[in-house]
């Protein structure tokens, strides 16, 4: 069983559309959506939820007013300015560190389990999907990502499937790191813009330079700027990263999305061919 994570550095380069296309192309797999704070893969995969579980990612402090003596110790020790002058904890600012709870001299602070979100195992027309919804303005997206990955892996092992295909998050921080550490391969989807190229370099430095994960790169909408697209390809050669293909810019991708279909289901045109080649070039067939 192999785990492939699709990331991008820069947002909006086409990760999810390409992941959905892979859902059409890969035969034996579990899909996982690890972009838990703005998960979109389900809009194409249209999952039927079979199992759901609440996600408690951490705890937060709660001050019992009737026990509080307003000694101010909690405000003194809190490093996150999470406690107001009238001793109310702001759940958005609370980091869940328990320091105020520990130092309250009258034990007036509860440390309660905090509901951060929910995760799901679903059936789709492409096979199983593990996905999640992080509550709005919540923390711990990294923990939720790890959980989704772990569940997807268990499912793949249990059903003896070949792949776990993971839709990752933009950026290079917490959720991205959680979605790639220990993966067998990473595919970076970039675009031929100065921003896309800049962000690609950072994310490759993370996946390949820092974590030494085999990293593939593809360029979406390559014909928007062929010059930069070529530069990206050269960069990959120099850095010894597998450049696995480029995808032509076509409005059909948006049309497929509006219809709730993967581009492979929707059309057999140039975009579908380009993505099929990328899938083949990664050598997973």
């Amino acid at each position, binding site marked *: 069983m192999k785990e492939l994570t699709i990331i*991008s*550095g*820069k*947002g*909006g*380069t086409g990760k*999810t559309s390409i992941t959905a296309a892979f859902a059409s192309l890969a035969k034996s797999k579990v899909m996982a959506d690890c972009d838990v*704070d*703005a998960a*979109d893969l389900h*809009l194409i995969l249209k999952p039927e939820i079979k199992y759901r579980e609440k996600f408690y990612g*951490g*705890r937060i402090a709660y001050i019992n007013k009737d026990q509080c003596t307003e000694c101010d110790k909690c405000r003194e*020790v809190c*490093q*996150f300015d999470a406690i107001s002058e009238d001793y109310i904890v702001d759940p*958005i600012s609370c980091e*869940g*560190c*328990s*320091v105020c709870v*520990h*130092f309250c001299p009258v034990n007036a602070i509860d440390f309660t389990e905090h509901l951060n979100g929910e995760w799901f195992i679903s059936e789709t027309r492409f096979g199983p999907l593990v996905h999640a919804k*992080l509550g*709005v*303005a*919540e*923390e711990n*997206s*990294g923990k939720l990502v790890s959980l989704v990955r772990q569940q997807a892996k268990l499912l793949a092992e249990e059903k003896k499937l070949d792949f776990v295909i993971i839709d990752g*998050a*933009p*950026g*290079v*921080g*917490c*959720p991205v*790191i959680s979605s790639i550490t220990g993966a067998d391969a990473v595919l970076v989807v970039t*675009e*031929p*813009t*100065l*921003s*896309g190229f*800049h*962000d690609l370099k*950072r*994310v490759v*430095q*993370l996946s390949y330079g*820092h*974590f030494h994960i085999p990293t593939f790169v593809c360029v979406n909408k390559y014909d*928007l*700027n062929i010059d*930069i697209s070529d530069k990206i390809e050269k960069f990959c050669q120099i850095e010894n990263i597998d450049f696995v293909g480029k995808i032509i810019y076509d*409005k059909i991708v*948006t049309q497929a*999305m*509006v219809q*709730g279909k993967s581009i492979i289901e929707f059309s057999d045109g140039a975009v579908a061919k380009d993505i099929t080649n990328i899938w083949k070039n990664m050598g997973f067939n």
Partner: protein
Amino acid sequence: MTNIMINKSLKIAIASGKGGTGKTTIAVNLAKSLGENVQLLDCDVEEPNSHIFLHPVISQVEDVNVSIPDVDLSKCTFCGKCQEICQFNAIVVIKNNVLVFPELCHSCAGCWLVCPENCIAQKERVVGVTEEGGNSDVKFVDGRLDIGEVMSPPIIRAVKDRTANSMIVIIDAPPGTSCPVIEAVRGSDFVILVTEPTPFGLHDLVLAVEVVRALGISFGVVINRSDIGDNKVREYCDSENIQILLEIPNDRKIAEAYSRGKIIIDIYPEYRKRFLDLYEKIESMVTV
């Protein structure tokens, strides 16, 4: 240079939920259109891009530090209290040793406050930088999270600590709906949510609206590539009474210019007025 009356120096954050909808485009075009007395803070510290379009001269680069524990083993009794209070598994006591995992540490101060032997000091650890500078018109700050670091909020806070007084401040926020976005938009007078009229754009806009509402900040929507996809973003905004502040059509020339680091008002100077109108509209919506 500006030909509108700026009545208020607002702090405007530009956010989106979904990535790649055009946050940076709106941020830099708005900043350049206003032209003076403007500061742009790029708070997308994982992948900062505003500098590509603004070409600022960076005059100051500073490390961003976080505090982590530094254990003096000669005084340590290995009582385990530090491990007990740490909620992030960042400090572990094993027999006659104490292991610190710096990447996991949230700098909550629990371990050094709780240590009965006072043998834990704080030590600074670099997690990224802020870069400050500008060009003839726009003042500029951005932050950069070091590669391999997990937590961006300390960098975002460091960027925002450089907020200029009595200037219009434009904040380019990261995508998503979790802690980094909250850190970036918190304290703003207004949030512009940039979206595109597609199912993904709408889905993530709805989440972003929930975030901004939870924070209690007034907001409006800019629809980028407004003629692709479908009409559901507009229908949603209508039903929720959310004002659509500006629509920018899909234009290959804009996309190609963007790819080369050029902004809309470079190729279509007439757009400058539309961005100034955008600012005026926001001014009228904010009661400071």
